[in-house]
Structures are given as C-alpha cells and as structure tokens.
C-alpha cells in the first residue's frame, strides 16, 4: 500500500502538468519584461552607490576609516547631524499637526469637498521647490508682505527675522512636505468604516471620546506612514535650507556639497552621504516592523 502511494506521488510529479508549464513560461516572460527596469536600477543606482561607498573608505589614496572617524569625532559633523535631525523632527510634528485636520476633513466631508481639499493640497506640489522657496522669501523677508502687515497693524515695531534662519527653513520645508503627510493620512482615514464611529456614538460615546477611542487609533498606521515619509525626505533637504537658511542653517546634504565645493573632498562627502543613507534605512527598518512598507510607499 505504502509503496504504491509513493509511486503514485512520483508519477504525479513526473507527469507533465500543462498548467505548470504554462506558469513557468509566464515567469520567464515576466522576468524578461522586468529586465530593462532591473538594468536601469543596476546601472544608475547599484553601481554608483557601490562606488560612493567605496570612495568613502578611501583617504589620500589608501583604504582608511579617516572620513568616518571625523564624522564621529569632529564638532562640525555632530552639529550638522544634530541640526538636521532637530529640523526634521520639528517639521514632521508641524506637518502632522497641520496635516491631520486637513486629511480628517477630506475623509468625512462629501466627495465634492474632499476633491477640492485634495486639489488644494496637491496643486502647490506641482510647483517647483525653487519657486516656492523664493515665494516664501518674498512673503517673509524684512520688507515682505507679512512684516509690513505686522508693522502696519502695530503688532510689532521693527520687522521680525522670519527668513534667512532656521525658522524660515522650517516654514518653507513644512509647506513643501505637507502633501506627503496629508495623502497617506487621507488614504488610511478613507478606509476607516463610518459604521464604527456611528456604533461608538450609539453606545453613548461623546464625539471626542469616539474620535479618541475609535477613529484616532485606526488612523495610526497613516500617521506613522506620513511621519516616516516627511521625516526621511526632510533629512535630505538641500535647496530650501540653502536658499532661505541664511548660510547658518547647514543641514547634512549641504555638508556634502560644501565638502566638494569648498574642500574638494569627495571621500568625506561620500562618507556623509553613506551615514545619511544608513540613518534613512534604519528608520525604514524600524518602521517596517510596525507597518508594512508597501503601505507607507502607497502601494496598498
């Protein structure tokens, strides 16, 4: 009995299953279709990235950890990474504070209103970062609209320093990154069934109580996704702090360019990039333990 069963199983495995062959052919076809994209990723991402990493381990033509030693021991690097993280944290929290109500409104209002709100969020998104930085410069500079209004209304005697410093950088960066907070939040909130909120209310919960106990916990995955995106993008910001930071707001990406422009030190610049990249990957790793990555990147 036993022997025949095994024999039967072998026979089944050896028999040419038409559906299996078909599937295998499909796999090969899919691989072929994918190969141009894989080639592009390999040639334009993997190869330069490996080169970058290699370069970061060379100092004066020899293998060395010199650049990394400097990053971890010299004050300039510490200060820059500290400032970069501080700005990113502030920007992320501000974006959440401003983005959450917007996304919430869009998720509970009728379709027509939701579309309008989302359009208003996305519209500036299509304008160049450079243009938006200059627009903020015009609004917030010493003789800008905001300061003129403040002085005319008697709220302040002399113009406030709103630009060319860390504050200006934060304002402009929050504006640019806000869509990256609102969109994942909206996507999550839209999927929260309204029945649950109604059930909570019918059980006697006040609107605030229902929001805190039912809606907010369900939107947390969106909060995490939005915060991750904004934080990670902010870590690498370059144009905005360069234009509105007044020269004192040196973020990590600017350290990369200064290392090349001022000191022509490619190794040091590569090392800074590698450290920044590792920070980003570490953040993604930690977050992926909490929320699936596909969700953050908007695939699901």
């Amino acid at each position: 009995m036993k022997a025949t069963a095994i024999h039967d199983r072998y026979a089944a495995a050896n028999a040419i299953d038409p559906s299996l062959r078909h599937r295998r052919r499909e796999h090969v076809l899919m691989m072929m279709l994918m190969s141009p994209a894989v080639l592009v990723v390999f040639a334009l991402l993997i190869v330069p990235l490996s080169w970058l990493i290699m370069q970061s381990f060379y100092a004066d033509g020899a293998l060395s950890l010199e650049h990394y030693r400097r990053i971890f021991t010299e004050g300039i690097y510490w200060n820059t990474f500290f400032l970069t993280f501080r700005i990113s944290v502030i920007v992320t929290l501000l974006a959440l504070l401003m983005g959450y109500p917007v996304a919430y409104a869009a998720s509970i209002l009728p379709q027509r209103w939701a579309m309008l709100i989302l359009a208003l969020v996305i519209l500036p998104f299509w304008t160049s970062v450079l243009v938006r930085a200059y627009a903020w410069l015009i609004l917030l500079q010493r003789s800008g609209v905001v300061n003129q209004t403040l002085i005319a209304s008697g709220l302040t005697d002399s113009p406030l320093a709103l630009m060319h410093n860390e504050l200006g950088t934060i304002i402009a960066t929050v504006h640019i990154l806000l869509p990256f907070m609102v969109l994942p939040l909206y996507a999550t909130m839209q999927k929260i069934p309204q029945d649950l909120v109604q059930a909570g209310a019918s059980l006697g919960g006040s609107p605030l109580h229902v929001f805190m106990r039912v809606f907010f916990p369900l939107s947390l995955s969106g909060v995490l996704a939005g915060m991750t995106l904004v934080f990670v993008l902010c870590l690498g910001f370059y144009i905005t702090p360069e234009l509105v930071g007044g020269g004192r707001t040196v973020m990590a990406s600017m350290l990369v360019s200064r290392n090349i422009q001022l000191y022509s030190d490619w190794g040091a610049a590569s090392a800074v990039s590698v450290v920044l990249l590792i920070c980003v990957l570490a953040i993604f790793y930690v977050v992926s333990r909490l929320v699936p990555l596909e969700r953050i990147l908007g695939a699901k």
Partner: protein
Amino acid sequence: MKQTHGLKTLMVTSVALAGTVGVSHTMAAGQITFVSQGGAYQEAQTVAILDPVAEALNITIHQESAPDAWPMIRTQGTTGQAVWDVVDTPPLNCVRGGNQDLIEPLDFSRVPNAESMPEEYKTPYSVAYEFYSSVLAYNPDAFNGNPPETWADFWNVEEFPGNRALRNHPLGTLEAALLADGVTPDELYPLDVDRAFEKLEEIKPHISTWWTSGGQSAQLLYDGEVDMLMMWNGRVSAIMNEGANADFTYNEGILQNTHLCIIKGAPNLDMAVEFLNAAIDPQYQANLPLHIDYGPGNPAAFDIGKIPEERARELPSYPENAERQVLMSYEWWSSAEGEQAERRWLEFMQQ
C-alpha cells in the same frame, strides 16, 4: 549659439581640406574647449574676446561653463582624461592645480602678450584674464548721506546701524575682517587667521545673511533686505542700472581676478597656448568692459584708446581704483596655511 556658425564653417573647410590633402588629422586641429563661469559674464566675453579670437586664429572654440571649476579640474587631472583645454577660473585653482600636477606649467616664451603685465598678475601656471572686486555696497537711503566707507565702518554697528550680509566663503571675508581691525594693506599677507576669525566672531551676531551666490547678494540689496554688504562690483552695478537704491565704494575693495590656465594633458595643448596668448591681447581685452562691468586682466588694454575714459574710471582694475584696493594674494590662499584657513570656515559658520 554664436559658435555654431563658426563650427559649421570650420567643418566645411576642414572636410574640404581633408579631401584635397588626404590627411585626416587636420580635422582635429584648430579647436579648443574653453571653460568659463556662465551667465552674463560668459556671454559678454564671447562677444568681446572669444569670437574675435576664434576668427583671428581660424579655430573653433567649444564653450562650456562651470561656476566652480575645481572639482572638474581635479577629476580630469587625476583620471588623466582631460576634455577641457583652457579654463577661466580664480588663480587659486590654477596654482593649487599646478602644485598638484593637474595644470600645465605655462611656457611664457610662447605668451608674448603677458610680457608687459605686472608680475603679480601672473603665476607659473596662469595669467590674469579679467578683474573684479569684492566691494562694500550699501543702500544710500539707510544712511542719510553718511554711508559706510571702510570695513571698520562696516564693523561699527553703533554708528552705522542696519542689516548686514557677508559672503559665506572665507576668500575676501578674512581680508575685510583684518582691514576692519586696523591691519594696513601692505601688512595684510600672510593673513593672521586667528585674528581674522576673532574679528569675524565680533560681527557675526549682526550678520543677517551669509550669501552663497552672486544672484542672492544682488537680491538682498535690491529688496532692501540688507543695508550694507560685501558683494562683487559687477553685481552692484547691474542692479544700479536697474534703478535699485544701491551704491558702492572701491575703498578697501578686495581686488580679485580670474586667470587663464591649461589642464594637464589638454587634448589641444599647442592650440591652447596660442589661444591663451591671443585672449590677453590688449585689443581683445579692451572689448570686455564695453560689454560687462569687469576690468581687463591686461592693463595695456587701457592704453590703446578703445575704452572711453569715463568707462575706464568705473572699472575695478583702472589704476586709480586699483590703488584704493587690496590685491588678493592667491599665493597665500594656495599655501598650506591658506587651505587650513579655508577649512576653518565651516566650523566658524556653525558655532
């Protein structure tokens, strides 16, 4: 764009030549790749110098631009794959490049036009091409007829209140700090770096913006964002012509220039030397100030009667103006001490 026409003509002639003589290398002869810094400045020199030189030497000049040529000089020099021939860049890059074997030493016997030029306008690797100055510019409205005239005034926040800006770069800024601290121009070099940074520390709280690009400096003054700043003379004149409330003084200006130098192993080395000599010919040099607010690198250009007297007086390298300024020493900046000072800048900015 102007070059396209020349290129076509050359291609037609060289193809014809190659056809009759049957020698293919004539195709490659008679061309160079020239690199400058782009923008209005490169357009002006195209009309003033490059086009006439191309015609006179019967060559094609391929133009490229790089606002900061040093990383490219380094890359081309170290990989041994030069694609550029002649670079118009601050002499610091030429000298530093020369010391690191990235720039060709110049055979001055083949550059007769440089003979009459002052020694301080030449290095073993390069010759002066044009002059500009980092000057003290200001908004006259902010000072009621008593504008700041010296760097000591710039540092005097009591008598001259107002928003200030400096360039986010040590070159020129350290010089201004030392002049403000009472160092005389003859004693300026070698720079007392510690003293300069100490003096800069003093003005730092009063600097609202450290600018990074020339356009940004112009914007700051034009919009009234700052009342006084150090900026390049050509940038001030440009916004003055546009009607901005702006003025400047050549007093204690830091006179700077760009030089022409040749990349090590340049593909058209011979022609590059010939071009370099022609580009500093007083005849063509005198054309430059007719198109942009920069002075000729070769002072002989002032003597041939091409630049009107009125115009000449506005230029940074006009002898009377040059006397009131300090010529930046690139020898010092390219020394180990200078490089060390440059490295301190980022640290200073972040404290």
